[in-house]
């Protein structure tokens, strides 16, 4: 799929081209949003909103960055907006975080009934890992999802999140240590 050609066609109003672009991105995008929001329905809503935003603004896309960078910037911001709204309205349990992440996290399992997508979890380790990622701060979760799930390189992550390369390194490092801290009691499941 020649993305540049598709985008040119979309700018002329070609809906078939837009449909193809959506098809190429939708699964990974929904999974990104799912990892961020830990809710499948919210993930689809967020992804839909992101696609409609880029569609609306497609004429302004100048191809200085890749479409992927642009799209995930929009999607990431949509997810963060949802998370901010959630934290304003919901009762949240704070997780102690300090500069030294060692020993400061506890694994907190959600006590809500498992949703339909939890049926996809193959084993206990995956479920614990998924829960642990959900426990991370928004910043740390973003790093883990972008690097370890979506496979973006450090430079791309810096562009998408709008921070420096040094900040990406620092955040990702702390994010991985935070996961380690949450899961260390269940270490035996990961050897």
């Amino acid at each position: 799929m020649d993305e540049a050609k598709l985008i040119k066609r979309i700018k002329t109003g070609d809906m078939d081209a837009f449909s193809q672009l959506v098809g190429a991105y939708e699964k990974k995008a929904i999974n990104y949003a799912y990892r961020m929001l830990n809710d499948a329905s919210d993930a689809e809503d967020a992804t839909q909103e992101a696609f409609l935003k880029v569609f609306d603004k497609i004429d302004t896309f100048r191809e200085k960055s890749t479409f992927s960078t642009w799209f995930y910037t929009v999607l990431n911001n949509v997810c963060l907006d949802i998370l901010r709204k959630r934290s304003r309205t919901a009762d949240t349990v704070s997780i102690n975080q300090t500069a030294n992440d060692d020993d400061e996290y506890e694994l907190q399992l959600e006590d809500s009934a498992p949703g339909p997508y939890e049926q996809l979890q193959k084993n206990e380790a995956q479920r614990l890992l998924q829960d642990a990622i959900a426990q991370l701060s928004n910043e740390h979760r973003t790093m883990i999802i972008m690097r370890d799930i979506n496979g973006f390189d450090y430079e791309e992550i810096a562009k998408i999140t709008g921070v420096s390369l040094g900040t990406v390194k620092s955040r990702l490092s702390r994010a991985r240590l935070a996961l380690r801290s949450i899961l260390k009691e269940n270490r035996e499941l990961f050897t």
Partner: protein
Amino acid sequence: MAKSDCKNILNLIPLYIDNMLSEEETDIVARHLETCEHCRNEYEFIATLTKETKKLNEIEVSSDFHKNLMAKAEQKARTKKSRKFILLRRAGAGVCAAAVIALCVVTYNGLNKHQESTNPDEYISPTSGVSQNPVKLTNEAPNTQSDVSAPKTQSTPIETPQKVAETPQEAPEAPSGGGSSAAPVEEACPSAISLDDTVSTYTVATVTTNEDNRDAIEQILSRYEKDETGYKVADINPLLLQLAEMGATVETRTDSTVTQNYIILE
């Protein structure tokens, strides 16, 4: 092995996994891991977590996600197009009005010239044209141009509106007599000014909307008089723009069989 060494090494392990340390730091970590079992275990644990994260099960896209998204995108595209078309028609109407005024001025001055040429006492400047008043040898004050309102009748068709409609990519197709919003080139000036001396054309706009917006749109339209055709709206373009911004789909056509602009709510 000092505990502080292990703590420092632990902090470097996440980036060591990705080869994102400097050469010197990489070397320090590598040599430490050769001799420290505790840190080797930590390295393997963090590396395994990183690997397992990559393998987390993906959720599937629901079956109607794509279809729903495309429906919303198409709705957005239609709204965008309606807005562009309305703005284009406004521009076209502006150009038409300017063209008609220019025509009136030409006609008026032409008539003046004709009248003056029958009076042998008057001098007509060889360069007099649209913008000049003739110099008269009488004591009468020169004519001033007033009342440039567009006459309904004229002898010369104006070509300018055709260029306005042809240039953009969204140029409407030629209809077969009162067609849809793909209004033809010569219908870029719809509102009550006709360039054909026998036919007046008006705008008939069909508005469709979803249930969420219907009440609000009906409330707006209830301010206008309604007959069996639809709502009579004299100044239709601003209202159509407003309805399009509210999410309604607007399709317009020009119609020579009606006597004013209408909005039909479907």
